[in-house]
Structures are given as C-alpha cells and as structure tokens.
C-alpha cells in the first residue's frame, strides 16, 4: 500500500508541476528542483567482513515548493537504488518577516548539516556525511527526522548580525530491526515517542552563511524489532545530546566542525543503565579556483568502546580520515572523488567513492 502511495505522489507531482520555477498567479509562486546523483563505491574488505565490496548508487531527490501569501508548502521525496521515501512534508506559516512556523515532517534542527543540505548532494562538498549527521537509513545513530511542529525565528542584533532560534517538538524514530526508523507519514504506525530539538545560532551577517551555535536534542526511542536490543533486554532509550558547531568561510577556505556529547539512558526489562560517548568532526575545504575544490575531514568518537547503545549499530563509522577533490563543470554538474580510511567497531578498511551530482533545472 505504502509503496504505491509513494509512486502515485511522484507521478502526480511530475504531472502537475512544470519543470521550471513558475509564477502561478500574481501572489503565488511554485518551484521544482531535482537533484541527481550516481556513482560507485569501493570498500577494501574481504567477503567475511559482511560488508559489500562494490556498490553503485543512483538517486534522485525531488523538492517541490509552493508559496502563496504567508502560506508555504514544501515536500522532498527521495528515490534511489537504496530507498524510496517521503523525506519532508511541511506546511508553513510566515508569522512575520523573521518568524515561520512549520507543521509536518522535517529534518531535526539539532543536526546542522542536515538542516543546511538536506538530501541535496550537489550542494554539499563531500560525498559522505559524518557519523552524527547521517540519516537513519544510511547508518545514522541519532534520529534525524521529526514529525510535528517547528518554529524558526531570527532576532536582529547590532549591525547586520543575527541570532537564530529553531525549536521543534514531535514524533521521533524507533529502534527498528536494522536501523533507526523515523515516523513515516505514508505508513503511520503507533509506537513513536517524542523528541525535542533546539538550535541556537549566531550569524555575524544574518544574510550570510557563517555561523556557530549550540545544538540540543532529547529523544525517547522505543525498541521495535531490533535483535541486538532484544538480546540486551532493552525496551527503550532516552537519548540526550548537546553539541557545538561552526560553519565558517574566509576567502577560499571553509571550515565545518561539530562536537557532540551523547548520553543514553538504556531502559531495560530489569534495570536502567546510562552510557555516553562523544563524536567530533572537522571538515576543511579549499577552493583552488572557480571549478576545483579540495577537501578533507577527520572524524573521531570517544567512549565508543563502553557504549552498549553503539553496539546496536555494528556498521557505524566511528573514525574516518578522508581526502577528496571536487570538479564543477558545465552548468550545475559536479564530479567528486573521495578516499577514506574508516574504522567500525570491529573492522577497519579503505573506502573510495566517485560521484556525479547535478541539479535541474
């Protein structure tokens, strides 16, 4: 049922929305963006590791937006060789120039990377995402989708500076059979508990992209069919996270960094247990010229060895050292190559990615 609904939505959007940004009457406006990506990934592993050696990923991410007066609608649908999912479905109301409220399914505001790029791979420089920024179905260890209410407000400070507050409350993920499973508006089931997210950001230029800030999240995740969790006698996890981040550009350089402390209250059949760990990453990007960009990222996780929570995710990348190169060509096309050394809980290997990305129109 759900899969047919998904394809019907895609079909209807494709039929009704033209392939350009168009004006739809004097006070309304709609737009359609299609992000495309494709390319191989090679993992330097042996067949006993349980990890696929070669894979080829193809994907498309469709964003439809509609604006009429103070009303806004935004939908993001991803269709790829790995998944088919309605990622975002948001109805918005612009209260004033600097405040907007959203109702629906959206990306958790306490994950900065996701709030900046969502699934638009063309816009992010690297191919891979750091551990705390990964989506649930890509091996993520923290919830990245919320279904509920979100409020975004910009407070003007002296000069051009601004202070941005984003708050959300809604249904979070459950700990599913193989991964965290967010609330799916097309396949709604009970069992999803609450999450609260808050992002506080300082922007020296409120119209710019440079910023640093604080990220807070609390989520209550119920176990729903996860074998490892059942072996642990785990019923639910109350997870809290506190993070700081910075996204800073200066001349040809850009630094994107995040440090997150995560604590998990593991609620078991007979007892409760707390474990915690920290994840950090720093990504540096340098523009050689208008078309070429070189970048690298270091990721690390402290306290992972003692975390029962992380045992639920045996393929989580706990450490990564990565270098990459991106080439922008033609209009809205890019080719990226990325070489990494990655470390999981029980394995360490090399990884190579090649990816073409584009955006239409």
């Amino acid at each position: 049922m759900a899969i047919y609904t998904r394809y019907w939505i895609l079909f209807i959007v494709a039929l009704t929305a033209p392939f350009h940004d168009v004006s739809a009457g004097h006070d309304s406006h709609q737009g359609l963006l299609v992000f495309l990506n494709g390319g191989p990934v090679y993992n330097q592993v042996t067949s006993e590791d349980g990890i696929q050696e070669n894979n080829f990923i193809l994907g498309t991410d469709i964003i439809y937006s509609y604006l009429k007066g103070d009303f806004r609608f935004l939908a993001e649908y991803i269709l790829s060789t790995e998944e088919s999912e309605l990622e975002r479905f948001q109805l918005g109301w612009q209260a004033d120039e600097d405040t907007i409220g959203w109702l629906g399914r959206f990306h958790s505001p306490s994950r900065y990377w996701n709030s900046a790029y969502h699934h638009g791979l063309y816009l992010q420089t690297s191919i891979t995402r750091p551990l705390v920024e990964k989506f649930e179905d890509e091996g993520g260890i923290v919830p990245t989708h919320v279904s509920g209410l979100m409020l975004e407000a910009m407070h003007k400070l002296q000069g051009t500076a601004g202070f941005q507050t984003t708050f959300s409350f809604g249904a979070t993920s459950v700990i599913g059979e193989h991964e965290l499973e967010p609330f799916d508006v097309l396949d709604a089931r009970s069992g999803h508990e609450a999450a609260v997210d808050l992002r506080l950001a300082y922007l020296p230029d409120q119209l710019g992209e440079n910023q640093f800030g604080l990220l807070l999240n609390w989520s209550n995740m119920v176990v729903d069919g996860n074998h490892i969790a059942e072996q642990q006698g785990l019923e639910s996890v109350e997870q809290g996270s506190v993070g700081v981040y910075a996204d800073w550009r200066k001349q040809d350089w850009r630094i994107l960094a995040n440090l997150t402390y995560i604590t998990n209250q593991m609620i078991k059949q007979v007892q409760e247990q707390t474990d915690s760990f920290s994840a950090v990453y720093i990504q540096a990007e340098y523009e050689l010229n208008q078309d070429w960009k070189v970048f690298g990222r270091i990721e690390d996780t402290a306290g992972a060895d003692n975390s029962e929570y992380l045992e639920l995710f045996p393929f989580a990348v706990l450490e990564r050292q990565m270098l990459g190169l991106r080439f922008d060509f033609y209009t809205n096309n890019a080719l990226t190559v990325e070489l990494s050394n990655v470390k999981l809980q029980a394995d360490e290997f090399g990884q190579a990615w090649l990816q073409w990305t584009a955006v239409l129109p």
Partner: protein
Amino acid sequence: MNPVRAMLLCCMLILLSMEVAAADRQVVLVAASTSPLHNLDSLELRKIYLGFIVKRDGEIVKGLRNTEDNNLNSIFLQTVVAMSEKSYKNRLLSQTLRQGIPRPAEYDRIENLSAALSTKPYSVSYMWKDDAVRSSKIKILRVLWHQN
C-alpha cells in the same frame, strides 16, 4: 576644410558623444507605475534577492531578475547581492531546499519583464535607466549603480 581634418573631427565628436552616453549609464531599481512601493534600502533589496522575506503592507515583496544582458547581470551581482554568479546560484538553491522559497523568476526580454511587473504590484526589478524611462508602465524607485 581639409577632408582628413574633417574626418578626424567627426571621429572625435562620435567618440565624445559615446563617452557622454556611457557616463550617463545607470542601473535603476524599478516597479510597476501602479505599484504602491516607494523605496527599498540596500539591505532589504539584498534580502529579497537572496530569498528572505521582506513585506510591505502585509504583502511579500518579490524580486524579478532581468537577464537581458551580461553587463547588467554583472552589475546586479556586484551591487545588489555582492556575490559571484556561482555563489549566488548556490545560495538560491539552498534557500529553496531549506525554506521552500522559489528562486526569483528570470526575464530575458524587457517587454516580458515590464508585463510581469505590471501584474505583480509588490514586485521589483532592475534595468538600464534608458529602458525604464522609455516605458510608461514602469516607475524608477532609485538608482542602484551609475558609471563613474
């Protein structure tokens, strides 16, 4: 008069008139002549073209892009948004992706742009002053750039 001297004089006059014409070149911010908009400051204009919300009388002010010629586009990028073409394009994509705000509509013919402004009273655009003066449907809000 010596024909060579006359020709040189003509050339000098033509060059001088071209110089005067070039020195008068201005890019202006425009709206429909019936528009209730009076003026927008530089910050508001930058907000509009970067996909942020600016309101007048409770209505959202929209920016329409004039892509008729490359010089005008360069002046717009330099004067209004202060970004390279590539950075600006990526910023607009980000705004659509993050906020669901569609990118500004683009017009590569001045007639179409004038017609669009006429039907959208809370919209603004930019054009060469000569073009704005010629059209009765358009009013000039202010000068954005003038050639030194």
